[in-house]
């Protein structure tokens, strides 16, 4: 690596690009040249850096100063002040200085901020995602080299089992066990699928990994392929994630040229190929069997399970389907060992979890923290408190299939088992934090609207149930419901859970159950008093004045 005095990073997530990150990058290039500094300063477009309040951002190391929003007009001033004269360009420093990721870590070393624990995001926002060299310089492809040259497939699976890694797509199934199921199948052909159809509302952790560190997917999939005996993989990327698709394409091409994909990888007899398959906009394709149908070129409707994909997956062959975040954990586990991995998180849920922190809080964005921290800690430490000093009312986890977490559960450790015990779910890692201006009926209505739109229509309980539930919530929000409707809602939630074919329908009733469990008084106020306590729902029927 070339030694440089300063490292300048420009954020390049879709919003930054929309706001002119490319132009800022060019202006920086020109100015650095104009000052004759090109030998001393490295300039890189990096992925999403995990904070989104002053885009596009320019970050200068080693001082770790964050500038934003930066426009091309402001670049000469920035370059002259900071890079030429060595002073911090005060006028451009981003207003909220609390940050996530590597930057937070650097600040934490100075004792100013709590640190995150970054494992899967350790490279995102630091390296140039379009450069395979950058990836290799940051320990890239070492884990693949290690498994191919010094481990048997069985040893790889044992190591993953020992690490206790559980699927990060929402269900929390042990990854090593899943690999074991596929490994023991006797089949000529097996497949590895990377589920990058991230579409849980409020979740964009996978996008960040794909955009910021695409090679980690390739490496992890090849390791999985070696472990289970597969020589072909598919990355199913959400259709809307254009930048991620572009970066993955480039990464696959580069990996192929460098010999990390293709035939005889690392001089062994292991072969592996990866294809990208872009979705076309359907939430249900995140369900693994629907995803498989979609790769096969059909409507993305879930299959009946069993048989599971581990025995009958893509084109009827044994298939591993893993979420992006799950896969991103694989290379570090291989490199550092299962015991190292188990030193993070809780005994039953080792490792870290990436959360997207959203809603009525001061700092939104992405954090990676050990499993088992509490909601209260997330809000106080990482989100810097509620916006405008408002009060925390509830958090909605894991997109629409998550739970509504009332304030009374904000001290429950966030890991798979503690949450299950408390009767709620961690979901896919979104934390939509709401204050008292949020009406639970209105929120549930938005969530059910999502399900009724996204229901694939294959099974009746889900297709009809989600529609009826939305209609009932609509009635409640207009002050036209009766108390007996609440019993019907509870029954509907139960039926959705018991009778639906796949996870979408089964979890669609969760918001109904949660609002009746934790916020019944507020729901009843809409019916008994025809009043929305949060002042959100427009009641069409007003109480007549006598």
């Amino acid at each position, binding site marked *: 690596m070339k030694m440089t005095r300063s490292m300048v990073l420009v954020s390049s997530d879709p919003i930054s690009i929309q706001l002119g990150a490319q132009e800022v990058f060019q202006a920086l290039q020109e100015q650095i040249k104009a000052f004759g500094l090109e030998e001393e300063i490295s300039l890189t477009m990096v992925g999403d850096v995990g904070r989104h309040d002053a885009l596009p951002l320019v970050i200068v190391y080693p001082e770790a100063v964050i500038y934003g929003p930066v426009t091309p007009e402001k670049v000469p001033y920035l370059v002259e002040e900071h890079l030429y004269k060595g002073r911090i360009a005060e006028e451009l420093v981003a207003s909220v200085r609390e940050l996530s990721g590597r930057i937070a870590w650097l600040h934490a070393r100075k004792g100013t901020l709590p640190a995150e624990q970054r494992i899967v995001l350790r490279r995102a926002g630091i390296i140039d995602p379009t450069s395979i060299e950058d990836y290799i310089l940051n320990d890239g492809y070492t884990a693949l080299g290690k498994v191919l040259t010094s481990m048997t497939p069985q040893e790889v699976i044992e190591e993953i089992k020992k690490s206790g890694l559980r699927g990060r797509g929402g269900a929390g199934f042990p990854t090593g066990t899943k690999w074991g199921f596929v490994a023991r199948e006797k089949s000529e052909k097996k497949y590895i699928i990377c589920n990058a159809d991230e579409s849980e509302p409020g979740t964009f952790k996978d996008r960040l990994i794909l955009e910021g560190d695409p090679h980690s997917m390739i490496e992890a999939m090849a390791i999985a392929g070696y472990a289970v005996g597969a020589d072909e993989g598919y990355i199913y990327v959400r259709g809307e994630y254009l930048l991620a698709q572009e970066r993955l394409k480039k990464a696959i091409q580069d990996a192929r040229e460098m010999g990390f994909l293709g035939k005889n990888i690392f001089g062994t007899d292991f072969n592996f190929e990866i294809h990208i398959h872009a979705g076309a906009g359907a939430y249900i394709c995140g369900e693994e069997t629907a995803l498989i149908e979609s790769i096969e*070129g059909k*409507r993305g409707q879930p299959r009946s399970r069993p048989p599971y994909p581990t025995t009958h997956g893509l084109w009827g062959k044994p298939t591993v389907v893993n979420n992006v975040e799950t896969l991103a954990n694989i290379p570090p586990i291989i490199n550092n060992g299962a015991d190292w991995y188990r030193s993070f998180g809780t005994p039953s849920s080792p490792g870290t979890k990436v959360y997207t922190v959203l809603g009525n809080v001061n700092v939104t964005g992405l954090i990676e923290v050990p499993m088992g921290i509490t909601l209260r800690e997330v809000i106080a430490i990482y989100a810097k408190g509620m916006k405008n000093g408002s009060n925390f009312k509830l958090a909605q986890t894991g997109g629409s299939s998550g739970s509504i977490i009332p304030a009374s559960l904000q001290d429950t450790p966030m890991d798979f088992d503690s949450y299950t015990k408390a009767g709620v779910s961690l979901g896919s890692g979104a934390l939509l934090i709401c204050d008292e201006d949020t009406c639970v009926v209105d929120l549930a209505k938005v969530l059910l609207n999502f399900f009724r739109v996204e229901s694939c229509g294959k099974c009746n309980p889900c297709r009809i149930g989600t529609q009826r539930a939305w209609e009932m919530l609509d009635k409640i929000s207009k002050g036209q419901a009766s108390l007996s409707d609440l019993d019907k809602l509870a029954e509907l939630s139960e039926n959705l859970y018991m009778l639906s074919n796949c996870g979408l329908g089964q979890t669609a009733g969760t918001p109904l159950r949660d609002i009746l469990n934790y916020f019944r008084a507020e729901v009843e106020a809409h019916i008994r008093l025809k009043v929305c306590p949060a002042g959100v729902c427009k009641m069409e029927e007003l109480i007549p004045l006598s």
Partner: protein
Amino acid sequence: MSVETKSREKILEVVNAAIEKFGAKQEELIPILNEVNRQLGYIPTEAMEEISRRLKEPKSSLFGVASFYHMLSTKPRGRHVIQFCESAPCHVVGGREVFESLKEELGLEPNETSPDGKWTLITTSCLGVCSVGPVIVIDEDIYGNVDARKVPEILARYE
């Protein structure tokens, strides 16, 4: 409605190019339909018939696929398609007001196309840029932190 429909030659040209690019295999059906949709703005019946013939797939199953995915349209759309995110994270930070403003500025309800063929307004589920909600997407441009008052200015950028 003066929404532009495409000539048969143009349609066949686009379909040919798409099949050439991905190959005439069933597993490439969605990428092919996606490509045609991107080039033409929608998937005309003629395109469906041609793809059906070339891939040896029944028209019914083709229509089944084309109507299943949100990003594919079987009807002509306006020159610019506005997607409004209606999921919870955008909703709780002011999405409702933005949607009202959009509908008012455009004079459209969801899934409608303006009479001059300029705009089509659709609602969509989460687009994965939630930390800058409310979010709207016009064609392939993403706008974050949209304020109801900013809507007219954003719309004015499009011809």
